[in-house]
């Protein structure tokens, strides 16, 4: 029903001089920005290490980079800190990563939801650390990390158990607590379209945490449904500019 996001501009020139960007109907375009196009998941995840902090996009299953999570499992890395809204469901994807014992610590807003059996077992057995962060504080801490804000005050969670140990200050009569930026070593995100400049758009509510995570991690890897081969995304409709993206792997719709 809805028109697809953005329009496209014809392939053409870029840079202060000129370089023609051309690609066949199936070839990936040459990268003309920071982002590199990868041909397999292994290449997209090259260099991941034990003990990394990893942001994983998505809200529930929507906008979640499933292929990259599977790829992360396959690398065998362990002792991870996972930063995501949820802590997985069933015994696949993120839940499987947890079940395999690869995760030391989870930072999330909503670990307990229908099907989060793996997380609950680990938590109740004392085999996983949990930092609960209100959903808005979670996204704001990521946004702060991406925007160079080391810390900010917020009324969210003031006076609650989540405020324990945090600095308290009143602004305009309202009690606030100090929260700090939340960075990660790696962000795994899912987007809808990518162009040769690494610009990304998202689809509907698949947007969620993905754009803000792309700003907050040292290495940003995006699985995308379509790489645009015949033009660029409309500059008015780009959600994540290419400068945030290190690697792109096309998954298909």
């Amino acid at each position, binding site marked *: 029903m809805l028109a697809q996001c953005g329009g496209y501009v014809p392939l053409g020139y870029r840079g202060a001089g000129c370089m023609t960007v051309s690609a066949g109907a199936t070839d990936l375009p040459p990268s003309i920005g920071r982002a590199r196009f990868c041909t397999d998941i292994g290449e997209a995840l090259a260099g991941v290490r034990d003990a990394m902090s990893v942001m994983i996009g998505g809200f529930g299953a*929507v906008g979640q980079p499933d292929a990259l999570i599977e790829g992360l499992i396959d690398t065998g890395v362990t002792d991870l800190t996972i930063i995501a809204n949820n802590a997985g469901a069933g015994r696949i994807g993120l839940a499987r990563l947890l079940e395999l014992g690869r995760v030391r610590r989870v930072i999330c807003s909503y670990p307990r939801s229908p099907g989060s059996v793996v997380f609950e077992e680990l938590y*109740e057995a004392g085999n996983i650390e949990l930092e609960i962060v209100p959903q808005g504080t979670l996204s704001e801490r990521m946004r702060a990390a991406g925007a160079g804000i080391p810390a900010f005050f917020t009324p969210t969670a003031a006076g609650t158990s989540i405020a324990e140990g945090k600095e308290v200050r009143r602004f305009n009569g309202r009690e606030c607590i100090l929260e700090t930026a939340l960075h990660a070593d790696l962000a795994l995100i899912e987007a809808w379209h990518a162009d040769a400049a690494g610009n990304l758009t998202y689809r509907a509510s698949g947007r*969620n945490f993905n754009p803000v995570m792309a700003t907050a991690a040292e290495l940003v890897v995006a699985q995308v449904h379509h790489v645009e081969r015949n033009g660029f995304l409309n500059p008015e409709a780009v959600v994540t500019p290419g400068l945030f993206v290190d690697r792109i792997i096309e998954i298909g719709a």
Partner: protein
Amino acid sequence: MATTGSGAAAPASHATSIGWTRADMARRVARDIGRGWTVNLGIGIPTLVADHLPAERCVTLHSENGILGVGPKPESDPDPWIINAGKEVVTVVPGASYIHHADSFAIIRGGHIDLSVMGAFEVASNGDLANWATDLNRAPAVGGAMDLAVGARKLWVMMEHVTRAGEPRLVAACRYPLTASAVVTRVYTDLATLDVTPDGFVALEMAPGLSLEALQSRTGTPVRSPSE
């Protein structure tokens, strides 16, 4: 919508034969929502409110996972990319927009949501809200409840008046962990609609056949009538 702990949902059956149904409660809340408001409806009973909002009220429903302008559940051709905060597939209305999480919560926390309607375990007479955890030793799950509780311009709670065990949910002080302090402005239960005032709960309206004394006996803190 407020992703509160599952315990915040009301029991499926009513403990008393006197009282409004969930649909009654939803209809009652819908009646109080103003024209052009942006509203976030929490998981559980609050979601039912959407069914009772007349189109000419021009209410925009916000879902904190990034939709402004949530529409009804699809009658056909569901698009799995369009989900609400309860992770149900929904639609969007013309005039909707998609936003990312940081923007969505900036909207919530910046005071741009006119009304948040949430479920709760308990509400105290000073407006304290407890709706995210009953036992911090179990893995808690807060979701967006704390953000909505402090950020929405008005915070209304919809819940059963008492627990399954018959214990009051309207109390002098919350026993469960707080979601936020002094934030609830109105409570809609199956037995009454109550304002939170500087003098505690005031019953604006009671279910047919219910006396103030009967309401008081089911409430853990004094309830006054508006005329008092």
